């Protein structure tokens, strides 16, 4: 039902002073009034505001407009807003066109006259285009109410619990044999010093027992297909070689396993584990797992000690990896972080000096379930008299990670407190800047100052076993400039803690490709919008929570997890969803079945129909990117709302000055 005579309303937005500071808005309005088919042109301070939208709605009704052009910000920002206003006014939402005179004009043009001229050009283009728009109907699809959560750390657990508590089904996929993530390795948490295990263990148990959560540990996502509301996730459940339905978690198998000298991943190489093991005593599930690489039976075909002693008959050496598909409507990514490996910073001697620890190792040293049962001692069992904590290891450093890892200042101060409390040792914090922006954080810093911690503002240049005073033999010398006292300090200490930064987990590239979101230059997930879309991604229905988006502390992670859970719930509770009508159509009379379009479609939306020798578009999967249309050698493909006619008219309009 294309209207025969277009009657266009043009609205030019000031955007406060964002646009009007450069563009002479009144001049643009006056100019627009004289353009073909324009019925009325107006300006307003904020078109996106309610009165701004009302202006459109009442004009359509009163002046009989049938097309709308808004010249304001980028379509990325408010196209949806104005389409909705157009629809509310009673028009087809696609009878609307946006001219971007902020991002493309006022923000990037120095000269006000040129900016005004450019605004006129852009408005002229939009007016010419909108006259040729065709009405489109958004498609409506059903939404699968199940949610997939990837990652079982504190973020993933919290998100899963919130969704499950709302009565929806959650599939929680975790790569490791247990959920709990990094937080389960920590001892105390800053700044309140409450015990990480005391607050996280109940979450592990709740997840393990929740009737709406299907927990898949030791499992990985290997493929994700579909679109918002209708995804199919393919998950690989790695063989544990232990039957989870039979294993009681008694632990006799680990006791009897002869391969005992395998460095523990959970204790970050500070202790050993057996080949059949559980990462830590409170693991969920407590089903053991056999590490095939180190198991004597798998290596040499002999042993089976675990099987012999297992009263529950749970050992199953013939177990195979299992591939399963689950149907979901939404996905939450909560893949967390890994800590920076300081080995390349040879000047700090990690790996060379046995008393140099990473911060995550030091968490284990402090933890009651760790290698020293929570006591702070050197490897030869001495109580340290002095401890150095080095901030920004691998962070704020162009040679490694250029970003600030955000949590290190605070956890370093927590360590200082614990060392002081447990050993009375002198603690030296070597920092560049103390960053304590959080509730109670600055107060915690002050508390540490009062406890007598030495705060030395300077990046450590070297940790060495060369001592200047022979009586310090056996100690490590930490060298830094005390930049505030203006002195180079060479401080002998018994232990050194490297406050390593956070990095994205392994395998993020693969997940990004599978799920369809982008990573920033540091490897963290790009959120939809840094201010207004922090938990969403550019792919509809895919949400993010926690450190996979960037380093953050536990309170922020939990807040994000609950936010992401809310976003997912809001989506799946809608049951039906309207999807953009801007998809590709293939004209079967022109298509030669050459498959070039299928090659360039990154969404897998095009398939070949051999019976008719033509390609066909699955509208549900198509995102309207236009790759196919521009590739088709026979011009058989058009993208709705971006057809040749519309684009040519827009260009014609812009260039016709």
């Amino acid at each position, binding site marked *: 039902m294309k209207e025969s005579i277009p009657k266009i309303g043009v609205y030019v937005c000031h955007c406060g002073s964002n646009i009007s500071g450069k563009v002479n808005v009144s001049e643009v309005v006056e100019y627009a009034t004289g353009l073909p088919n324009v019925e009325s042109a107006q300006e307003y301070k904020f078109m996106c505001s309610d009165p701004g939208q009302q202006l459109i709605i009442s004009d359509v009704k009163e002046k009989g407009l049938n097309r709308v052009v808004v010249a304001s910000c980028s379509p990325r920002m408010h196209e949806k807003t104005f389409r909705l206003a157009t629809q509310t006014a009673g028009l087809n939402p696609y009878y609307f066109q946006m001219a971007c005179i902020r991002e493309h004009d006022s923000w990037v043009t120095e000269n006000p006259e040129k900016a005004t001229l450019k605004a006129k050009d852009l408005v002229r283009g939009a007016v010419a285009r909108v006259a040729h728009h065709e009405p489109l109907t958004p498609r409506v699809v059903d939404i699968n109410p199940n949610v997939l959560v990837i990652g079982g750390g504190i973020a993933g657990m919290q998100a899963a619990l919130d969704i499950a508590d709302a009565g929806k089904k959650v599939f929680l996929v975790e790569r490791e044999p247990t959920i709990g993530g990094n937080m389960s390795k920590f001892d105390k948490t800053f700044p309140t010093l409450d015990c990480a295990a005391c607050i996280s263990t109940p979450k592990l148990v709740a997840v393990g027992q929740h009737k709406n959560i299907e927990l898949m540990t030791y499992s990985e996502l290997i493929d994700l297909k579909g679109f918002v509301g209708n995804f199919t996730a393919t998950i690989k459940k790695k063989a544990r070689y232990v039957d989870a339905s039979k294993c009681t978690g008694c632990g006799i198998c680990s006791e009897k396993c002869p391969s005992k000298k395998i460095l523990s991943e959970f204790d970050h190489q500070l202790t050993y584990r057996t080949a059949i093991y559980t990462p830590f005593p409170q693991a969920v599930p407590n089903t053991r797992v056999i590490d095939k690489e180190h198991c004597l039976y798998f290596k040499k075909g002999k042993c089976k000690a675990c099987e012999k002693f297992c009263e529950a008959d749970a050992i199953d050496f013939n177990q195979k990896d299992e591939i399963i598909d689950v149907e979901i409507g939404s996905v939450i990514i909560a893949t967390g972080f890994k800590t920076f490996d300081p080995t390349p910073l040879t*000047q700090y001697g990690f790996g060379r000096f046995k008393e140099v620890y990473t911060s995550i190792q030091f968490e284990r040293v402090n933890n009651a379930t760790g290698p020293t049962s929570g006591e702070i001692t050197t490897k030869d069992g001495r109580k340290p008299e002095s401890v150095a904590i080095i901030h*920004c290891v691998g962070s*704020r*450093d*162009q*040679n490694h990670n250029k970003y600030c890892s955000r949590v290190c200042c605070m956890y370093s101060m927590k360590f200082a407190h614990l060392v002081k409390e447990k050993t009375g040792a002198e603690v030296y914090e070597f920092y*560049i*800047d103390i960053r304590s922006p959080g509730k109670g954080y600055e107060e915690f810093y002050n508390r540490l100052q009062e406890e007598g911690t030495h705060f030395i*503002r*300077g*990046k*450590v*240049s*070297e940790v060495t076993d060369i001592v200047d005073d022979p009586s310090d033999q056996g100690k490590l010398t930490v*060298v*830094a*400039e*005390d*930049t505030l006292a*203006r002195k*180079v300090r060479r401080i002998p200490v018994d232990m050194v803690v490297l406050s390593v930064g956070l990095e994205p987990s392994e395998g993020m590239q693969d997940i990004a490709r599978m799920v369809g979101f982008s990573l920033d230059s540091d490897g963290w997930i790009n959120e939809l919008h840094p201010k207004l879309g922090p938990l969403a991604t550019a792919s509809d229905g895919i949400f993010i929570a926690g450190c996979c988006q960037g380093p953050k502390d536990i309170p922020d992670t939990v807040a994000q997890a609950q936010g992401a859970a809310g976003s997912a719930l809001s989506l799946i509770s809608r049951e039906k969803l309207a999807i953009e009508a801007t998809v590709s159509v293939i004209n079967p009379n022109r298509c030669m079945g050459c498959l070039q379009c299928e090659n360039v479609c990154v969404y897998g939306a095009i398939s070949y129909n051999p019976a008719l020798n033509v390609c066909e578009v699955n509208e549900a999967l198509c995102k309207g990117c236009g790759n196919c249309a521009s590739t088709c050698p026979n011009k058989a493909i058009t993208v709705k709302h971006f057809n040749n006619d519309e684009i040519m008219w827009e260009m014609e309009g812009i260039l016709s000055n």
Partner: protein
Amino acid sequence: MMDNESLKTLFFETYHGEEIVNCIQCGSCTASCPLASMMDYGPRQLFALAREGFMQDVLSANTMWFCVSCYGCTVKCPRDISITDHMYALKKMAIKHDLKNPKSKMPMMYKSFSDPVKKFGKITDTSVIFRYAFFHPIDIMKNSRLAFNLAKKNRLEILIHPIKNLKGFKKVMTKALELEKK
């Protein structure tokens, strides 16, 4: 003497000093510097002064003259600033703008090195030391035991065997100096 502002412009634009604006004043340069204890200001503080325009203080400091070119600071700098190269630049600026620090003996050491190069195209340890001894005899006397030791082992090369095409070499160096002055 040039004013602070012009000196800063010269340092930033001709000698690429502008990258010191990236400095976060962490002090890892000063801490890695083998002779920082002798310096009026460590490299960190020197850059703090330079970027705020206190260039006369910078150029009359002894800091750069104590730089031994070990590049220890450069490889550790978290902001990837080529600190050693800036020390060279500041030394050159101090010489050219006649602010060289009388407290430092290094300009004389460099001169003792470059004189035989200009004359013969080469140096020997001994030729450098002899020239230097002329200005700072005490430093040499303190090392008499070493000199004796080297002489005994026939390691004092008093004579320099000049390069063969000395005439051509000198023409090259004259041209280079001519271009330097432009």
